[in-house]
């Protein structure tokens, strides 16, 4: 696909083009935190930041999502009427998404859209109608470890366009047909620009200090890791709160509930988290993950063993480092995985 140049003084025109018949979102600074918000001009968006505080997964998998509505009017000959939720009515563009977050969506695609039966139309609808314009990381932070889990600060997986900041301009790489349509009209890049981007990529990779080793995790049997003594120590300080799962771009567990109000009702899907005892509580009163240790182990085993085993080696972690930064008791996923690998 083509390599183009997007000059920094042409950003507004570029963004105007994006907004024309789509909703445009980008990371912005709000109350001292970097979060996602609708933007219309280039100065509203951030172009130099580490990453958003929370992952952008809620664009495709909102924390609270209505799945359908129903009405049960007494004596109504039609009986209960169920109504599907309307699909997304306008396509969307996520601008300046980080490559790690974009890769996370591709991991989640493997889970939400598996085959004819496991085919989450809520997820798919939003995915199909969204274009991802990535912004390569030139300055990864100390908690980033993307390169060690198969991701990259300049990674292109899952993106439609990748922008690389070259100082006075961006190198825009179109990666899909959707991306080509957006940047096709921009001037072509010179050979020097591509070389500079490659240099920046190398420099960014070099800045990733910490990481995880996965070789032994991959070769060990599931039960060997499951029964490893390390979990007794990892779980000790864990609060069993939902912080790590809720900020994680690849955590995707949910709980579906029906809510009623008089004759009206809706089926709603909310984020849930494996750290909660309620998550696995059975109606019988039995809880297969009854102890804190079981629940803490689940999160790491799921990401680094179960998903790779079931999804052809794909790791359920993209190395964004959010859980490392936000965990109230500093359970560092890098340390845990390295202990699993020890």
């Amino acid at each position, binding site marked *: 696909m083509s390599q183009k140049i997007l000059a920094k003084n042409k950003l507004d025109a570029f963004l105007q083009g994006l907004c024309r018949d789509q909703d445009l979102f980008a990371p912005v600074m709000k109350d001292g935190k970097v979060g996602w918000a609708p933007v219309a001009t280039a100065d509203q968006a951030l172009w130099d930041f580490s990453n958003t505080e929370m992952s952008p997964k809620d664009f495709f998998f909102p924390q*609270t999502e209505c799945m359908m509505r129903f009405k049960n009017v007494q004596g109504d000959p039609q009986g209960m009427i169920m109504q599907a939720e309307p699909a997304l009515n306008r396509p969307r563009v996520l601008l300046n998404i980080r490559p790690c977050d974009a890769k996370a969506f591709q991991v989640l695609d493997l889970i939400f859209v598996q085959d004819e039966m496991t085919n989450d139309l809520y997820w798919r609808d939003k995915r199909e109608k969204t274009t991802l314009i990535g912004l390569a990381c030139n300055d990864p932070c*100390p908690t980033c470890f993307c390169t060690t889990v198969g991701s990259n600060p300049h990674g292109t997986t899952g993106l439609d366009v990748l922008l690389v900041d070259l100082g006075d301009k961006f190198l825009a790489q179109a990666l899909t047909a959707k991306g080509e349509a957006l940047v096709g009209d921009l001037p072509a890049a010179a050979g020097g620009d591509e070389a500079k981007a490659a240099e920046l990529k190398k420099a960014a990779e070099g800045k990733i200090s910490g990481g995880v080793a996965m070789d032994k995790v991959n070769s060990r049997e599931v039960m060997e890791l499951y029964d490893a003594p390390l979990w007794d120590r990892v779980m*000790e*300080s864990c*609060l069993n*709160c*939902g912080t790590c799962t809720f900020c994680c771009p690849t955590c995707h567990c949910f709980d579906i509930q029906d809510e009623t109000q008089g004759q009206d009702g809706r089926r709603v899907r*909310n984020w849930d988290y494996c750290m909660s005892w309620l998550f696995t509580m059975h109606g019988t009163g039995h809880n297969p993950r009854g102890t804190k240790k079981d629940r803490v182990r689940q999160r790491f085993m799921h990401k680094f063993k179960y998903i790779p085993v079931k999804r052809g080696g794909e790791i359920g972690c993209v190395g964004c480092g959010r859980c*490392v930064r936000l965990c109230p008791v500093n359970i560092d996923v890098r340390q845990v995985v390295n202990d699993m690998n020890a």
Partner: protein
Amino acid sequence: MEAIAQKIREAAKRLLSEGKVDVVIGYAKGTVPMREYPYFAYTPEEAENLTWSSFCCNNLALYTIRRPGRMAVVAQGCVSRNLVNLINENQFKRDDLYVIGVNSPGMVDRRKVQALFPGKTITEVIEEPEHLLVKGQGFEERLERKKVFRSNCLTCVQRNPVISDEMIGEVGPEGHGGNIDKVAAPWEKLVPAERWTEMQETLKDCIRCYACRDACPLCYCHVCFVDEAQPQWCGKTQDEADVATFHILRAFHCAGRCTDCGACESACPQGIKMRRLTSKIEKDIRALYGYRPGMEIGAQPPMSLFKPNDPQDFIK
């Protein structure tokens, strides 16, 4: 700081090698700056990892709950008050607990520090007696510790431990001069509609991860009301009514027990100021019943007590 940390390590090593306790619960240095974490030392060697700094923000009293065996806990004022609370609530026996007391220097709010360097990454924070040396990618700055204290540390009234079997370092002054009654004051001046808007504004970022509840040493119910399904008191959605129900009831469940240790605010990944709710209750309990939680072993909790002359103007 380092001198205190060294003494904590020595005390822990001694306790463990003499077999006086099975575990010493303290703080260890985190893998990211400004985030020390609860650490469990079972052997004298492990005690080497213990530390003490301006970022010991978790309340260690939490980890004594339903923990068998004899334990030593590193406790500053608020942690010791929560330990007293737990003893009064019959969660464990005083004899099973060894308190390694420390005067709290006042803990630092990492959000306040980060807010001074918007968009920048802090890589290291070095402790100095009255200052913090903050280093990051391409900058270095010295901050006055008191300017970046957690807000609950500013209004603290009990920096020394209430109970201690061994005091590390000197007994210091009790307060930092702030007044907790002023936390709720700005809201109290508003009319109801504005109060509601303000509260929604405070809670709008809540992601319902329950870190505030789980970090709190008061919240040890086997089943929390938010997890109850029949009836379901509080839905699981992001609807403002659900979020408000959770925060109001959580705060109320801490009435007469909250020691204002600030663990909830420190744990919150979104920086929500839930002390706006709990400080109001703390103030009311003090004004109405003259009670401060966790100050004395054997004290009757105010919510399981009554006096014939309790205020009742609100009752028709």
